[in-house]
């Protein structure tokens, strides 16, 4: 929480509060101020909505398997002198 209650939020202030707002870290009354501003300011509403959507697309796109290629794993384990572990795993 890095904000205080603004009397009247400007478009520039919306940008400054955006990271906390999108991460759910703004106080309730500040959220209300932001939402009030967005209901009256088309540009800010579009910027906030599309920034939120950008993050959700990044999450959806990054949701790929976290495993590494098998040859990369093998070289890594050899480099770390963990060949035994690999051999044991392969014989199980």
């Amino acid at each position: 929480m890095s904000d205080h209650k603004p009397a009247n939020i400007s478009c520039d202030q919306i940008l400054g509060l955006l990271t906390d707002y999108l991460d759910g870290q703004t106080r309730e009354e500040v959220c209300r101020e932001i939402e009030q501003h967005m209901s009256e300011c088309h540009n800010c509403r579009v910027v906030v909505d599309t920034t939120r959507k950008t993050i959700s697309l990044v999450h959806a796109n990054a949701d790929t398997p976290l495993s590494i290629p098998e040859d990369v794993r093998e070289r890594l384990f050899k480099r770390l002198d963990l060949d035994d572990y690999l051999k044991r795993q392969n014989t199980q």
Partner: protein
Amino acid sequence: MSEADTHEISVDALRAGDRDEFARFVDLYSGPIYRLGLRMLGREQDAEDVLQNTFLKVLQHIGEFEGRSSLSTWIYRIAANEALMIVRRLHPEVSLGDQENEENDGFTPVQIVDWGALPEDKLLSGEAKKFLDRAIQSLPETLRVVFILRDIEGLSIKETSAALNLTETNVKTRLLRARLNLREKLSEYYGEHFPRELDNE
């Protein structure tokens, strides 16, 4: 990957040189670290260097790990440093300093295209995904590393700031710039590719 995922790893066993525990740790973290390297550097060979160097450093320094940060934050810190070292080597002209007085200037949104309600199959078509990957890849390194740790690997602001040795304010500023930069590029992309659909919004 966040702190909670490493709770099952025993730091004491790692410190004591337990090879099986170390192998489990490597398997748990090799995916995220390799992905971090790929996202930061864009080349498989460089990502593999980051991966190997990171775990070699873990082996060398696990005895010095004091547990002031989580094991997860610690390994991300090592990996991010390894990736940034390669960036410095490949692009010595790039400044990676901690500019505490960074402002939000230069990132005023220009594109006001309301593409958020486009259907998912258009937003994440094969081509759109590739565009998004390239857009992330084209972020300046100082923003990209923050963005990857926070928005791709899911570290908190606090964990990201600890991993990169930046203040939380600095992390938030860089994150905002990265997010707005990507938003701008995606707005242009969707505006160009789906003008009819967006006219009907």
